[in-house]
């Protein structure tokens, strides 16, 4: 790890100011992704701006929205009675991320800002048609994810919360874990709610999380596993690595989507 300065601002305005004043400064959330990267010396920030003092570790439900503060750890989401009631599939997804340590440190904001192509949360946010709220704007999920490790966030912009529209009628997430990292080799989030029927796929796409629109159309017509059993995702847009060829991932998308539909129905 290279040396860096550490700041823990007490307000969003201070955090934004610190980031704005130094293009080499980086926000720090749970550190589950950032710290390993620093340890490997793959990144050399001048300052780390710890977001844990901003009051962003919170969950609330209003009539038609569940909002989760950016600094809410996965374990808190998994165990939240509000989340379990409003969108049980989301609680379950959070409870299936990493291990206990990761779940108690890693945050939803960090996961989304990082947009790892194999991460779980992006599938939920895209699949539920959520809105990512930052210090300066509201970004629809469809616009937020822009490719592997790439998002709509501008330099110095901080995610403050994520708003999920309610009521969610049906939803489920099915993850086929990459056997070593246990991130998603293929993860499929299927939902029926205010944003319509959506199928979001993580782990598989060359550009990160994506919507499987053919499946969405078929499920809109009929929400049942066999409605999508014969829908194949073209392998030429999918990843291939030592853990799975594009053909295998394509196959797994259909299997995981069917299982998610079955679990949601």
């Amino acid at each position, binding site marked *: 790890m290279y040396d860096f300065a550490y700041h823990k601002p007490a307000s969003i305005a201070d955090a934004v100011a610190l980031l704005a004043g130094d293009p080499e400064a980086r926000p720090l959330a749970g550190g589950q992704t950032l710290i390993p990267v620093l340890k490997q010396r793959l990144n050399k920030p001048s300052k780390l701006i710890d977001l844990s003092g901003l009051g962003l570790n919170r969950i609330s439900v209003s009539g038609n929205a569940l909002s989760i503060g950016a600094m809410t750890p996965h374990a808190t989401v998994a165990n939240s009675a509000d989340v379990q009631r409003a969108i049980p599939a989301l609680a379950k997804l959070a409870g299936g991320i990493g291990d206990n340590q990761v779940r108690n440190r890693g945050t939803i904001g960090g996961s989304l800002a990082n947009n790892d192509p194999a991460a779980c949360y992006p599938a939920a946010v895209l699949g539920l048609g959520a809105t990512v709220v930052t210090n300066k704007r509201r970004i629809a999920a469809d616009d937020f994810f822009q490719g592997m490790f790439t998002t709509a966030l501008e330099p110095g912009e901080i995610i403050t919360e994520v708003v999920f529209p309610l009521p969610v009628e049906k939803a489920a997430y099915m993850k086929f874990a990459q056997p*070593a990292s246990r991130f998603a080799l293929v993860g499929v989030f299927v939902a029926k709610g205010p944003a319509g029927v959506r199928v979001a796929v993580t782990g598989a796409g060359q550009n990160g999380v994506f919507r499987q629109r053919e499946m969405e159309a078929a499920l809109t017509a009929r929400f049942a596993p066999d409605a999508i059993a014969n829908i194949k995702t073209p392998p030429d847009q999918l990843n291939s690595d030592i853990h799975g060829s594009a053909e*295998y991932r394509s196959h797994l998308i259909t299997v995981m989507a069917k299982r998610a539909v079955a679990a949601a129905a």
Partner: protein
Amino acid sequence: MGFEGIGAAVKRKEDARFLAGRGNYVDDINRPGQVYAYIKRSDRPHARLKGIDTRKAAAAPGVLAVYTGADLAADGVGGLPCGWQIHNKDGSPMAEPPHPVLAVGKVRHVGDPVAVVIAETKQQAKDAAELLEIDYEDLPGVAASTDAIKPGAPLVHDDVPGNICYDWHIGDKAAVDAAFARAKHVVKLELTNNRLVPNAMEPRAAIGECDVTGNYTLYTTSQNPHVIRLLMGAFVLHIPEHQLRVIAPDVGGGFGSKIYHYAEEAIVTWAAGKLRRPVKWTAERSESFISDAQGRDHVTTAEMALDEQGNFLALRVSTLANMGAYLSTFATSIPTYLYATLLAGVYKTPAIYAEVKAVFTNTVPVDAYRGAGRPEAAYLLERLVDVIAHDLGFDRIELRRKNFIPPDAFPYQTPVALQYDSGNYQVTLEKALQAADFAGFEERRRQARARGKLRGIGVSTYLEACGIAPSAVAGALGARAGLYEVANVRVNPTGDVTVFTGAHSHGQGHETTFAQVVAERLGISIAQVDVVHGDTGRIPFGMGTYGSRSLAVGGSAIVKALDKIIAKGKRIAAHLLEASVDDIEFKDGKFTVAGTDKSKTFAEIALTAYVPHNYPIEELEPGLEETAFYDPKNFTFPGGCHVCEVEIDIETGTPKVVNFVAVDDIGRVINPMIVEGQVHGGVAQGIGQALLEHAVYDSQGQLLSGSYMDYVMPRADNLPSIHVGTESTLCTHNPLGVKGVGEVGAIGSPPAVINAIVDALRDYGVRHIDMPATAEKIWSIIQAHQPRMAAE
């Protein structure tokens, strides 16, 4: 005190400190004035090293020195030696290219050490290493043994033609050819044994130190400190052994990877001498992936000749063994004398011929890893037997029974050099089949199918050889070391005992098992026995721990020393009790005059030995301390039967081990709880090899699975509850009758798992699947046969 002797499942003495986090590992040790070494390693598989500009790094803050291969060469530092010379078919010696401590002229694998930076802090050393300017000229690399032997392949060592280290053979080729010529059936199988990364929980570490008088101390994560002292002192650094102390304190797992003499040990010791400051190096986990010797990596063709009834007539085996870029300490012996000599297995195959080509590639060196050669042999045989049954329509259990060496045939001479002293393969097979409810399996298969799962059961009846020996025979075969073990038993004046053993414990529980052996013999409690290991400054000598030898060889040395203690104790007792030595009996901690109630306790005799007031001082020296060297007459031969049951998710191909039974004949059991733990660990690694683990290189030699994000370690949820059973036919040639248990789990299990997978897929036209049997591989097989099944 309850029963604590041989056979008692007492809790491990060492766990008191380990569970409390009070272990003392190399990285826990900090010496006054200590500085830190950072080793700059090659990030390319194969390149000419045209120059290293160290000036900027040397001028960086906190840096004491930067050294390269040239500095070591200028100081006369030797290369890392190989401990076993193999001869080619034509009798000529193997190719043994230099293995410099720091690369000279070329780098040959990712991770090859290129330079070392020594600084006041670890951070400074690492910062400075980034300032090294290394001028590489990339060369084409080669990673697979099958590619390395192709004409025109890049040469790893410019003067080793065809990348062939040796082309060796064993057995009677003419007899085998003749048997094949008259055989009714020939069954052939090509298979690979996947390369593994050892992944000990504790990464390697070393601290070198040199005092004002030129006495050196090396603290290192080693399974055999005396061997390191010998190799490093005599061959690399030329430090006289009396001026070099090697300490291997608590060591967190080895699995073979901590047997070898590594460059880092020589670097920190040499640098400590130059700088007169203690120098510490601790591997980072990603460094372990590219610098710890790896395991397995065989590509093999095997053929069995059979008669009409399924009797094995002859076995012919041809293996390519990947050595990696350099010869690690015992690398050359693994695919030869610890592999091909095991090819009879538990079968009475009358003729066997094996040829092994060892090949250099641009990969991390390969050496012994839990099982070391025997897992490769067991996997080959136990897969081949199942394939024979499949191809020729024999029952796989009957085929085994028919070809087993019968219980009355021991001692049994195999056609590949070994002579088995004892065993009973029928009994372990029957016990395991019983425990696994083999008979009821078809019903479980049917039920699984109804749940959308393919269920399969696999059996392996393996054999292995532990406690490599005797020294003279190994020497004749090319070993450059002795294979005995040493024990010093020191009875202290008040009757408690300190045992100094040359065996090293890094997870095996010697502090408990050895104490139980002593407690049983002397009639004292295990709390009165302290077992000291891992320090050349305290222990007379030793060859260390590998090949499941500690109890069979090290334990036998302890027994020999105890015999001497008891013999001397009898003479002291005879004097005190005014009886003839021949009339003194020693039992339950008491020396008694036979047929009388006159006796002395062990503690009384000990005290008398140290306070010799009433003592036969003319005939007997005071004190009660004895040393023994034990050179075994033969290997020991554990064997047994593993039964594995798997279920495969048809849609995704995902395999899951749902039941596992291991019944192992390991000779006499000293501590059943420790035995169970050893088998559990070994089976976990075996299931890991069969289903999950794989060191994957690209064609040039970049390691693609170089972290836990990509290298699949087995975890608790990959493993079933494991049923462990034992059966004891005693070893006939060591005093304890023990055989060894450290590796049986990793040896017997991989073929059982793969046999189960192939059985689960029996309707899909598959006769073999290479390890690791990943979900995708299985899915592809299911996929490929879907059309055929649909058409039927």
